[in-house]
């Protein structure tokens, strides 16, 4: 007697629900329209006008949102808490700035050596600057360098099964070491001043409203793409394994997967996205310096994700806007209390809002879900 063997492979969940697609499309169209309307079609005194300042600030937040999503990718979905994503962000920014700092103002001949070389009496740029005067190579570097750094670090870390807080503190240490390295003038990245005073990008002056609008829209487009990409990954089989690793790495191993490959892939991807965000950030904000690598910066990135809600893409974006909104408000009106708010956020969010703001919104739906969920697997927080 043969028992018929039936294997039910769960169907791939749709990328977004119908209403999800609708909302996404609506938001994309709305943002593009509002941006164009606010920057191009309205006069400077019109209430609908978007000033360069607002545009830059919002653009900066878009870059942060990409960072938050990439951090969410490793922390929210895979349970790896990185305290060093500022490193990848800054590496992306530095790679882009290597191009920006050399690009001459439109209509002018090549700008010659960047200013910091005069301080060091260097007559030529070091070898690793080769090719950075082209935009394409700079963008590639902005993606490759963080990717390679993350791959190497991740390979050694995950191979020896460094996990949990151990790993977190190692990422922080690496970032800290990199910051010290970049603070040195001899490293060849402008020392503690970093790079600033950018003139142009791809032949266009960097300070005009038009260029800024384009940069803003590119950032927004990449944000949307990353959003879709992460959603696509997380609904795939690969994504399921990633989530399973978060919930119980040993079980995943026993089933026959090698967590190293999955973790390494997701970690490297996260770093690449972070580098991309940095590459967008540098031309928008117009400065990059080693301060971006300070451990506090990286931890602030973590709080964006925590406030928004781990494991939720919308939450990440929400977290970025909430925390940075609060930061802008407090640093402007009562600067000495901002650190209290930030410190308080860390405590309150971890104690009372483990699912973040999104968790608050979704709280009502959870009991209904729990009834249908299988009781066998209790999801434990990974160590």
């Amino acid at each position: 007697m043969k028992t018929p063997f039936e294997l039910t492979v769960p169907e791939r969940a749709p990328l977004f629900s119908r209403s999800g697609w609708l909302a996404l499309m609506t938001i994309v169209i709305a943002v593009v329209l509002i941006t164009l309307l606010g920057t191009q079609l309205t006069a400077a005194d019109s209430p609908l006008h978007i000033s360069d300042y607002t545009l830059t600030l919002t653009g900066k937040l878009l870059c942060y949102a990409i960072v938050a999503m990439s951090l969410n990718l490793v922390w929210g979905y895979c349970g790896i808490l990185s305290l060093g994503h500022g490193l990848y962000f800054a590496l992306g920014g530095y790679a882009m700035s290597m191009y920006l700092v050399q690009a001459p103002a439109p209509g002018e001949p090549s700008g010659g050596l960047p200013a910091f070389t005069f301080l060091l009496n260097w007559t030529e740029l070091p070898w690793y600057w080769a090719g950075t005067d082209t935009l394409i190579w700079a963008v590639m570097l902005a993606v490759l360098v963080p990717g390679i750094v993350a791959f190497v670090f991740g390979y050694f870390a995950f191979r020896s099964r460094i996990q949990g807080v151990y790993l977190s503190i190692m990422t922080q240490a690496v970032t800290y070491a990199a910051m010290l390295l970049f603070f040195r003038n001899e490293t060849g990245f402008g020392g503690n001043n970093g790079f600033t005073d950018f003139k142009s990008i791809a032949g266009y002056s960097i300070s005009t409203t038009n260029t800024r609008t384009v940069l803003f829209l590119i950032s927004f487009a990449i944000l949307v793409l990353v959003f879709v990409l992460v959603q696509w990954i997380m609904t795939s089989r690969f994504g399921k394994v990633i989530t399973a690793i978060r919930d119980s790495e040993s079980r995943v191993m026993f089933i026959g997967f090698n967590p190293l490959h999955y973790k390494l892939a997701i970690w490297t991807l996260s770093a690449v996205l972070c580098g991309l965000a940095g590459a967008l950030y540098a031309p928008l904000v117009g400065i990059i310096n080693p301060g971006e690598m300070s451990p506090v910066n990286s931890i602030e990135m973590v709080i964006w994700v925590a406030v928004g809600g781990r494991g939720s893409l919308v939450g990440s974006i929400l977290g970025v806007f909430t925390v940075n909104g609060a930061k802008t408000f407090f640093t402007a009106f009562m600067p000495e209390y901002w650190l209290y708010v930030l410190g308080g956020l860390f405590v309150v969010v971890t104690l009372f809002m483990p699912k973040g703001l999104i968790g608050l919104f979704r709280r009502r739906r959870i009991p209904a879900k729990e009834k249908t969920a299988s009781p066998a697997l209790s999801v434990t927080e990974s160590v």
Partner: protein
Amino acid sequence: MKINRSFAWIDICRLAVVASLLLLSAIASAATVLSPTEWSSLVSGPYGERKAAIEKLGQADPVIASTVLQSLSQGTLFELPDGNIVIKSDKGYIQPISGRPFPADIQPARQATLNNALRRQVQNALASLSLFSPYTQTRRMAIDNLLSRPDSLSAQQLAKATSTETDPDLKAKLGILGALSIAGDQAAGSAQRLQAVVSLGAVNLSQARTVLNTVIDDEHDKSSELSLAASDALSRMDARGRNSALASNAFTGLSLGSVLVLAALGLAVIYGLIGVINMAHGEFLMLGAYATYLTQRAFQAWLPDWLDYYLIAALPVAFVITAAIGMMIEWLIIRHLYGRPLESLLATFGVSLLMMQTVRLVFGAQNVDVSNPSWMSGSVAPLADWLPTFVVAYNRLYILGFSLVVVFGLYVVLNKTRLGLFIRACTQNRSMAACVGIRTRKVDAYAFALGAGIAGLGGVALSQIGNVGPDLGQVYLIDSFMAVVLGGVGQLIGTVVGAFGLGILSKLGEPLMGAVLVKIVILLLIVAFIQKRPQGLFAQKGRSAAQA
């Protein structure tokens, strides 16, 4: 007591005898010091005669001569209208040799003034005269002074001084002085010079280096025995310089290690037990330092006489304050996050921000002033002969000792007390410990307080070697965690070895490649090391280790 007193008596008697003898000899030789014309030329003669008179005075009896020369250099030597040469004092005029007083109301005819050349001559003569002073201290000063410009001493005086010198230490110095002048003297016999050059190799003076370099320069034949000996002596000097630099770096490393030990011990206890990295640990160090500051202020206000001992009082104060705050934080926050170490890490980071900002608001963002007690300031140069520039600061030495005491204390607490037994049990196997009736939550709370308290003690130590400001703790967190990682969790010895190893390694590496690169290299080394031994240097053995 009795013996001491009798010794004192003998000393006094001896002094009296010496003094009277000196006085007698002074009077006896008084007439022969200078002729009357020389006396008057000392004050008012032409340059050449004055020079000769000073020179003669320099060879004369030291007691008389130094008095006269001193007054000459101070401008208190006068010629009275009747031709007597006198020294002006508060009470009047005194003739230097006979001691005959003159009334103060006489208007002197002439005051002895010196030009620069003569002044220098007088100074040199005085310096060589002090070689014969009855007081060891004066002689020592004179010799040290001469060691920096040895050419101002004549060979006869040196020989005389060497023969009368009784103090062995000073005699050795006079020997160096002789070697310096012989080595530099082209006219001296070659065997003598060679001996002098060789002996200079053991001397730690810049002057000796100069002389040796001159010897090499003056020698036409670079392969001559003398020249070779000189370069050999120089290289011996260099070797001592290198060795002492190495010793200094090693000691600085030990000192950094001791600070890291103090910072890392508490971290290791907490991490080993609850698996939580206390990101606010650095802030407990900072609180300890501020507790020291407050204790110092309290002593300044209420117990100024005991100010020197405030540091001893600061130890329990800092421990209690930080342990109490630690316990409070554990009770308010950490307790609710057990089993969620990543969240605990974030929460403690928030706590660290809150603590820093609170301190900043209360005490201001500037550093506060914490001073070393007198018994901790200063430094000592042990082995000054072999390692000339190796200097050990007392405060660092005390902190090194203190950290060892703390390690020992923690060892006793962990191994000899009931609480320590419970902590070790929970660290090794929490559920089993709970099964045999240990209230693990309570142990956690006490252990957290203990870790915080140790950090507070570390803060007291840190306040003595660095600035005390709100950011004090930030510097040490990563380094001390690296020490914990390197040493392995759950073993006291691991943390100690890890901290000292890190400290010494980074300080020895610093001269080779600079502070930043050393940090990076060490970090990479640690990452590589973890590949080989994920459990650190001193892994816990047994079944419990698998869970760590």
